[in-house]
């Protein structure tokens, strides 16, 4: 198992290399440059700037130089915020984004899976119908709609929670962003769990467990739950991808000092190292999380034990 995990981890490196290469090409093929906004630059100053950041060299050399830097964990200097390196900028924002993102996934798991189990247990009763309807609504709503609506209702109208801000991660400021991100993931998890639990409960081995005289609760917890959770586990990878993109919106709506703004602003400013750094960091995170979900899946389902 450990050897398998390590081999899979090694297998991520070529994929990451592809991500770096493709995004390097896209970012560099685009028209415009990082210093176009500054009109007062004389040609000489501009040439100096280009030389300083190595932009006057051939693209292939720049690419190799960038890869070399990555190997040392160096993402290069930011071209738009010149007092900072990309590593510093992302290092400042990432803890915020990761805190919000992980809390959202945890909250989604804690709400979504029990809700799905409850809905499957009390199938076709009032609670089930209510939950299904609520889940359909929550899945359909994107975070850029729910976020502002939550801020409007809980912040401006009811004054329960602050509308926006961070205040070094004070819990009051975390509630609305985390809730906004978690809601659709929780709803999707609830739907997945409900559907798969219902399917598992119809399967032959559950019938045989019942035939052996086991009670409903014991069948549910000992036999049905583990296989029923598999779809939820394989959804964890896409869930993280959702939370990552959702965080772009949530950080804008709630004014959080995360990394989300760097991607859009960096692309607008043609801040090549910053955009690349964001893609590399988030690409690596997504790959890693997908791998963890895969391994967890193998651990839960003996039929796909990895060797």
């Amino acid at each position: 198992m450990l050897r398998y995990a390590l081999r899979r981890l090694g297998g991520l490196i070529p994929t990451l290399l592809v991500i770096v290469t493709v995004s390097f090409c896209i970012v560099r093929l685009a028209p415009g440059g990082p210093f176009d906004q500054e009109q007062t630059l004389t040609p000489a100053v501009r040439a100096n700037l280009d030389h300083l950041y190595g932009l006057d060299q051939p693209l292939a050399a720049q690419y190799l130089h960038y890869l070399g830097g990555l190997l040392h964990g160096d993402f290069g200097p930011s071209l738009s915020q010149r007092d900072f390196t990309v590593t510093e900028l992302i290092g400042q924002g990432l803890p915020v984004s990761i805190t919000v993102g992980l809390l959202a996934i945890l909250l989604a798991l804690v709400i979504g899976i029990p809700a799905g189990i409850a809905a499957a247990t009390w199938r076709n009763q009032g609670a089930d119908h209510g939950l299904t309807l609520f889940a359909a609504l929550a899945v359909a709503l994107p975070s850029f709609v729910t976020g502002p609506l939550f801020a409007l209702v809980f912040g401006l109208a009811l004054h329960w929670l602050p509308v926006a801000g961070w205040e070094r991660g004070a819990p009051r400021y975390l509630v609305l962003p985390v809730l906004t991100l978690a809601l659709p993931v929780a709803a999707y998890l609830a739907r997945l769990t409900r559907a798969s639990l219902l399917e598992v409960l119809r399967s032959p081995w559950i019938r045989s467990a019942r035939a052996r005289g086991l009670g409903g609760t014991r069948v549910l917890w000992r036999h049905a739950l583990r296989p029923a959770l598999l779809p939820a586990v394989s959804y964890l990878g896409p869930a993280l991808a959702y939370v990552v993109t959702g965080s772009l919106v949530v950080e804008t709506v709630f004014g959080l000092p995360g990394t989300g703004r760097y991607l859009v602003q960096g692309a607008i400013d043609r801040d090549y190292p910053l955009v690349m750094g964001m893609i590399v960091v988030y690409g690596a995170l997504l790959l890693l999380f997908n791998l963890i979900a895969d391994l967890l899946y193998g651990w839960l389902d003996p039929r796909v034990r990895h060797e």
Partner: protein
Amino acid sequence: MAGSTRVCGMSEVLAAAQAGLWRRAGRRLASARGTRLALTVLILIALLAVIGPWFSPWAFDQLDWQHLAVPPGHVAAHWLGTDRLGRDLFVRTLYGVRLSLLISVLASLVSLVIGVAWGAVAGFAGGRTDEWMMRFVDVLYSLPYLFIVIILTTLFQRGSIGVLLIAIGAVGWLTTARIVRGETLALKRREFIEAARATGLTPAAILGRHIVPNLLGPVAVYATLTIPQMIIFESFLSFLGLGVQEPHASLGNLINVGAQEMQSAPWMLLVPALFLVTLLVCLNLLGDGLRDALDPRER
């Protein structure tokens, strides 16, 4: 020749069976109350989006200096109020609905065409070609695709609808390609394909005349399910300021402006949000209904 008449007979039988499948699916679809309601509301919204703006005296970018930021129902001429520049929110929201629907349908088509072509060729060719084509899809899957879309739209002409379409369509085709490849693999072992090959048709002709037409059923269902995703995509980009630009209105940039103004003018957020929510819920209900109707396990 006897072989080919038998093939014709069989394809007729198949066609009849398929028509039966579709008719049954249609009946199931019509009998689901939620789906019917969703379809009705969708048609109403689409109609409203197309003809609604004609009934209002205002243009989508027309400023009314007498009525800045008026709530809905206050002034007779502005049914759903105005924004901070005095532009009519009813007309702007309906323009946004129109644009969102147009972009999402076109983007679905773009991704459909690429996905069907890619998946059918990969599945039909098989062997090493198939392996490499699908590996390419796998690699693209592992990219943080929304990042790529954001970068594409930002770097190449922000706000151009053409770039937006290509960017959204370019990432949407991956799942279609996978579905189509799977269906093609199943189809190409069927007798009528073998018969077509025996009659001497070129692979391209078999693909175009026999494989692709038979793929359209499952693909059509999947396409309905992608439209709401495309709407979310487009609105998301416009919300971030990367999609449709002012003075043009899309649901995304209306919601973005509304979110900034919600303290003093909450209706600027609520009106477009309400339309977007209704649209998405109905499209999802319709998609789910279609899938259930065509899924034989639910019978």
